[in-house]
């Protein structure tokens, strides 16, 4: 097998590899900026320099030539090589900054040059704390600068589009953003303009950077040149917790991170998953954080007289719910599951009411034809349509659902804004007693007689099956009134959480929503109804699903975590894809 020698260690390799990626794959490091594994390699930052050469092989014998000390002879390449663009060859010798002073010096020099025209305004820069330029400078940069002349000035605070703001002085011209619009989103909205040290990225004059994927450029910009207009100046990265999750705004299920501080989600960024979204996500999915913070259903509410809802206690809510159920036969109860809710919620709800004699839950997919782009934006507006299908809920179109509602005496809706998305009109719900399990106070929740606030994807661990049949899961990222970061081992704890107390002025109790996971509420309801139903956790529900439904065989949270989701077999379910 071909071999390479990196920092005096021997490695075998097969196929085509560039040195930088190979080195990173071995868990070692060479600093870099312009390289991105999913885009072309321009080798323009010149940061990833290494010293490289080739052991000399005798053409005839194929043996390595030795010097007088018996060491293999090396023919060094005449110049330093950029490792990102250096293709591995059999017998190649590479010395990184770890073993070569020349490589170390070259990297230091490049950093000094990158910084001479950089404004060095880290104290007011959003990128600080997660800035490759800052990090590499600490690790590999010069002690100080010898630059004592004037810096180049360029445009600052330019709103390139509705969501991205440019500070051209911070730009290091790595062209990642431009390549993104050329190679990934293919809108070609950005270009580098001007020449030499006046270069910076821009749109065409009078054009907006409204690429539906524009904010990915903020993520991949290795400095604070491109920032999120929305997130600018909101928080320092080191104050936030980062929790893995799934984008619930469409059917793709982009893997994401939720960034929280004081139990508010402040931003959403993509998390790499080669099988789903690679490094990217649509801008739309990023604004979903508002759903998690604002207009939440908090404390149960009830319609007493007329159409006015008012908050009520959990006890009263449970009592009202139970009395309603007791007053009706199972036939009169219509259960509506939701492609917007998780696999576990849909299953638990359906099972619970099956036990009470209600027939199988229905659900209505949330599809907008032609909305998708064949990339990460889908016609499907919900994260779990296929989950509902695999659970064998009854897929029902708008008309049939309206009919079913008109026939039912009690209608139970699992977080789905059926009114808002015009499946039914609020008036359709007028003649049945409507109970909504809701994360947000949507038109549907507002039109309901009883609203039970439940946790959203940012507050619970639960799974979702995307349009391609991949099941993936969320983690709790923000606390509710009834959860506690320190006790819940699944929750991440940031610096502020660990060292703060309730008396600190940056801790606000109101950010904790007064809601329960659906299954917890059902436990309480079961207790009141004397029903033999109890689950501890979404994990227990999934275990039950996995043993009960063949499509979910062997599916566990652990396996999803290990494999970044599990591909389920959609074929035997005859599921249509959108």
């Amino acid at each position: 097998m071909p071999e390479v020698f990196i920092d005096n260690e021997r490695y075998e390799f097969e196929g085509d590899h560039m040195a930088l990626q190979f080195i990173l794959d071995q868990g070692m490091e060479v600093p870099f900026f312009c390289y991105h594994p999913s885009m072309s390699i321009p080798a323009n930052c010149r940061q990833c320099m290494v010293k490289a050469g080739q052991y000399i092989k005798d053409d005839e014998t194929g043996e390595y030539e030795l010097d007088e000390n018996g060491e293999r002879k090396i023919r060094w390449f005449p110049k330093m090589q950029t490792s990102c663009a250096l293709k591995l060859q059999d017998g190649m010798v590479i010395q990184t900054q770890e073993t070569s002073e020349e490589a170390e010096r070259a990297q230091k020099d490049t950093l000094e040059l990158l910084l001479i025209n950089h404004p060095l305004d880290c104290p007011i820069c959003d990128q600080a704390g997660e800035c490759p330029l800052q990090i590499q400078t600490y690790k590999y940069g010069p002690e100080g600068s010898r630059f004592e002349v004037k810096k180049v000035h360029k445009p600052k605070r330019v709103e390139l589009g509705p969501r991205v703001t440019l500070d051209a002085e911070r730009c290091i011209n790595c062209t990642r953003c431009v390549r993104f619009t050329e190679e990934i989103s293919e809108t070609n909205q950005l270009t580098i303009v001007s020449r030499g040290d006046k270069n910076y990225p821009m749109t065409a004059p009078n054009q907006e950077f409204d690429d539906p994927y524009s904010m990915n450029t903020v993520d991949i910009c290795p400095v604070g040149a491109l920032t999120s207009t929305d997130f600018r100046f909101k928080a320092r990265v080191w104050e936030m917790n980062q929790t893995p999750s799934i984008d619930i705004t469409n059917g793709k299920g982009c893997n994401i991170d939720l960034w929280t501080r004081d139990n508010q989600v402040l931003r959403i960024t993509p998390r790499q998953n080669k099988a789903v979204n690679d490094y990217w996500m649509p801008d739309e999915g990023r604004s979903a954080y508002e759903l998690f913070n604002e207009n939440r259903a908090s404390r149960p509410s009830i319609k007493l007289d007329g159409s006015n809802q008012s908050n009520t206690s959990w006890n009263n809510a449970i009592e009202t719910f139970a009395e309603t159920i007791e007053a009706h036969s199972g036939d009169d109860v219509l259960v509506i599951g939701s492609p917007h809710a998780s696999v576990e919620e849909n299953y638990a709800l359906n099972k619970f009411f099956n036990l009470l004699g209600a027939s199988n839950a229905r659900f209505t997919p949330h599809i907008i034809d032609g909305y998708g782009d064949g990339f990460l934006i889908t016609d499907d507006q919900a994260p779990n349509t296929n989950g509902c299908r695999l659970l064998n809920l009854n897929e029902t179109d708008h008309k049939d659902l309206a009919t079913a509602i008109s026939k039912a005496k009690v209608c139970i809706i699992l977080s789905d804004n059926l009114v808002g998305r015009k499946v039914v009109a609020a008036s359709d719900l007028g003649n049945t007693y409507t109970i909504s399990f809701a994360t947000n106070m949507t038109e549907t929740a507002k039109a309901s007689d009883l609203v039970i606030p439940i946790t959203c994807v940012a507050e619970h661990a639960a799974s979702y099956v995307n349009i391609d049949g991949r099941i993936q899961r969320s983690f709790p990222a923000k606390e509710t009134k009834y959860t506690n970061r320190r006790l819940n081992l699944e929750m991440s704890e940031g610096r502020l959480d660990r060292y703060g107390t309730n008396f600190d002025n940056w801790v606000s109790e109101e950010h904790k929503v007064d809601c329960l996971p659906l299954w917890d509420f059902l436990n309480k309801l079961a207790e009141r109804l004397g029903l033999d139903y109890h689950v501890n956790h979404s994990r227990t529900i999934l275990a039950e699903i996995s043993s009960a439904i063949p499509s979910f065989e062997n599916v566990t949270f652990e396996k999803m975590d290990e494999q970044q989701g599990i591909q389920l077999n959609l074929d035997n379910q005859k599921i249509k894809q959108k």
Partner: protein
Amino acid sequence: MAEQELHFTDEELNEIEKIKAKFPTAKAATLRVLWVAQKKYGHVEPEVQALVAKTLDLPESHVHGVASFYTQYYKEEMGKFVLDVCTCLSCQLCGGYDVLHQIEDRLGIKAGETTDDGLFSVQEVECLGACGYAPMVQITNGVYANNLTEEKVDKLLENLKNGKMPEFESMVMRQNEKRIKAATE
């Protein structure tokens, strides 16, 4: 200038088709079509760039990036005569800066500016490949005026004011005596 006013004539479109035929891609024609547009409008301001992009069916950002990279494209309206004064190496040695300062002085503007009457713009430029005939000036991306002296510069300005462009000057190798003779006869 409103966008809908801008368009190429059939004749220009013909020329553009000829340019496109030289290359396997429409993109390759970008530089040349910017030239066609600049010849027509005298500059490649944003609307003109947009016209070029539309004509070639290319992203406007691409055309913008190209237009801003190359110095001969006028990104804004310039004077009727643009005087590109070479001050680079050989011209610097032979008085290129004197020529520049003389022109600035006579026209009352600095390099990078345009006279109020819109007649002249002056720019300092890099080597134009006429180093043996320094100092020299190129006029509006066209003809070269070589071996300038103070008198020649004044005469040049005077002529331009009267709408008279200098003629192309053949710089025959001194070794080509017959050719020089033929040219002067």
